[in-house]
């Protein structure tokens, strides 16, 4: 490419690059500086250097680490469930040779087009004690199996049950779409050869599909984990008073309680964890491309 053409390309992409840099970097820098108390963008920030926010965050007697752990735990469980559902459905359709026609495709992909907030409210209505699922759960849990005197709360519960259920429903199509697409690209002769040699389905999945789907699966896991880890609407609507999801914790600290230093510090930790996951995700994608 001639230097002139290169310069032209640079000039063409420069506005977008600058725009993105400003839009991404400025809030990040402000959040970073504010977490050290170096700005006065919000009321209550000291305007001078302090590590108080970080001291408070990493103090085990304070609630921040508990919120981080809860967020991590619930996100991990949801990721495992949603990815397993997506993988299971994709493999089931693959082995049963079910074609993904328009109707089925629509049904599976509905969650992709649902706003998180709306879905959270839908699940709230379904899961609260007089919602359909709530009633069914009570019948099974209390009346049929007599496991307890009363059914545990499914919404606003301390275990994050509602968040896990709603998050799994929202995210399983992502895993399904990725894995289903990869399965279509697999060489069928490998599976046929295994069958000819007497391998059962379970073994075929373990020895052929999972190794070949590895990077796709990893990217689905990381994508789901990241999306849920940073989610706000679902834990805000369905979460309990405590433990709180980290995003809700930031919101409550900053907006409801006016503790902006804690809000910004938690945000920075949050961003760092999310960026680390994003780094692994992009690395996994790069490796997948390399192996392809």
């Amino acid at each position, binding site marked *: 490419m001639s230097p002139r053409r290169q310069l032209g390309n640079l000039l063409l992409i420069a506005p977008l690059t600058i725009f993105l840099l400003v839009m991404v970097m400025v809030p990040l820098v402000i959040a970073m500086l504010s977490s050290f108390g170096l700005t006065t963008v919000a*009321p209550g920030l000291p305007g001078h250097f302090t590590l108080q926010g970080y001291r408070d965050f990493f103090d085990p007697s304070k*609630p921040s680490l*508990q919120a981080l752990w809860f967020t991590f735990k619930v996100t991990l469980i949801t990721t495992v469930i949603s990815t397993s559902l997506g993988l299971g459905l994709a493999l089931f359709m693959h082995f049963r040779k079910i074609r993904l026609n328009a109707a089925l495709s629509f049904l599976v992909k509905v969650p992709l087009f649902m706003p998180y907030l709306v879905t959270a409210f839908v699940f709230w209505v379904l899961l*609260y*004690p*007089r919602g359909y699922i709530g009633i069914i759960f009570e019948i099974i849990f209390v009346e049929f199996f007599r496991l307890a005197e*009363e059914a*545990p*709360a499914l*919404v*606003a*519960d*301390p275990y994050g049950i509602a968040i896990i259920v709603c998050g799994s429903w929202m995210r399983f199509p992502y895993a399904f779409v990725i894995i289903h697409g990869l399965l279509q690209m697999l060489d069928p002769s490998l599976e046929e050869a295994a069958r000819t040699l007497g391998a059962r389905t379970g073994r075929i999945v373990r020895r052929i599909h999972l190794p070949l789907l590895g990077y796709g699966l990893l990217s689905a896991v990381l994508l789901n984990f990241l999306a849920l880890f940073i989610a706000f609407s679902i834990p805000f*609507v369905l*979460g*309990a*008073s*405590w*433990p*709180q999801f980290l995003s809700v914790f930031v919101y*409550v600290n900053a*907006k*409801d*309680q*006016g*503790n902006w230093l804690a809000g910004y510090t938690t945000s920075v930790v949050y961003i760092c964890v999310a960026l680390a996951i994003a780094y692994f995700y992009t690395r996994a994608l790069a490796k997948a491309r390399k192996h392809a």
Partner: protein
Amino acid sequence: MTDKTKGKSAIARKTRTLPEADELPVAGIARRGFIQTAGTAGLSLTMLGFIGREEAHAAAFKPDLTMEPNPHPTFGYPNWFPSWDEIERRAKAEGKLNVSAWGGPETKDHFGKICAAFEKASGIKTTYTHGDWFAAQQQVLNEVKDKKEQGSIDAIFLWGKPFSNLMQGGGVWEVPILDILPNGRKIAYRPEMGRFVHDMVPTYGTFVPHVNWQDCYVYNKKKFKREDMPQKVTGVLEWAKENKGEFSYCDVNKGGSGHTWVMMLIYELTGGYEKYAFRPFVKEIADKDWQPLWDYLKELEQYCYKPGTYPQGNNAVAQLFAAGEITFCPNWDAVMAQGVIGGTLDPEILGLFVPEPGIYSPMDGFTIPVNAPNKAAALVFLNYITSVEAQMQVPQVIGAYPVVTEAWDKQTDKEKNQPYHPVKDLRAWRDLGKMGARHGEYMFHMMTQWVDKIARKN
């Protein structure tokens, strides 16, 4: 002609018009008798209200702690001081107004209607923004910080905390607007009604109350009688022990009915209202004296509905109540009203009352930001929404009490007897009765502590 000669001729003209003393028609009445008769007649007419009526009313407080309109005409104001007529003229000249408020759909409906009616009545183009109190407060504070002289909000609806933030952030137009508004006199002269304080934040007259939400004890009257319910605000624990799993209150950070009720518990359990009322926030008091409150709430938790879980908002509690999951909870009159009006709550089960000595509830209202570009229009708007006609809409649309009690008096019996209004004689109960206010700073402190002390398992 000089002034001196002009004066002399005027006196001469006046002298010529007076009849001579010896020409007076005496007709058998002496001077002393005339003075006595005239004096008696004058006093009688005054007592009957024919003479000096305006002045007497203007000077007198009415027994309901309101005042008559000021009869002093415009000439009472020097040129440098704006009369209300002048404010109205300037408002018309400004010609537009930006109003910002927040709340549920019913509040949106209320303010939408009221703004439209104001625009129609005044000809002032009124733009209503329904949003988030925090965003609106931040907008004003940021504009003030950026020294933006012409802001974007003319009248902003606030609860105690953002009002405090705006006051302390220099965002409030520090003019005693409540005393300027002619309709401000219709609000009873009680300190807690926004005159001195809003959630114990000093107002200096810069705040115009608009709606009186009332936190109440809500119970299922099909299952319980009124006398079965706790008569005192602190009686919940005993009741909950006897009726395990039947009571709940909302997460204090997610709904006002929860934190308003807990604020009342603070008053009752940790030293009384007088200990906090009209006094500044002292963190040491909260740290040192609040253990009885935390003990009470911790013990209560064991007997609550699904112990350890708290409904996430006023509506969530109302929904549990409507579904029959709980039979007793504190909640706002307006929230329960929306359930009845919307058909999601059976009015036959709704019992509602205010326990002794009360659940001191807020009177949210408006202030004018310091950089409001249309301050005269904002004043005229605030006067309009404090009129009896506009205030009458508050119970009908929102389901809460108006701050102008006359607007409650004029409601139909049907409206007054709705099950979501806990008190029928508002004047005797509120304006002339025992009144209190939440302490915004202590309440806020309690909200930050509640998660650690109650919701978070140690």
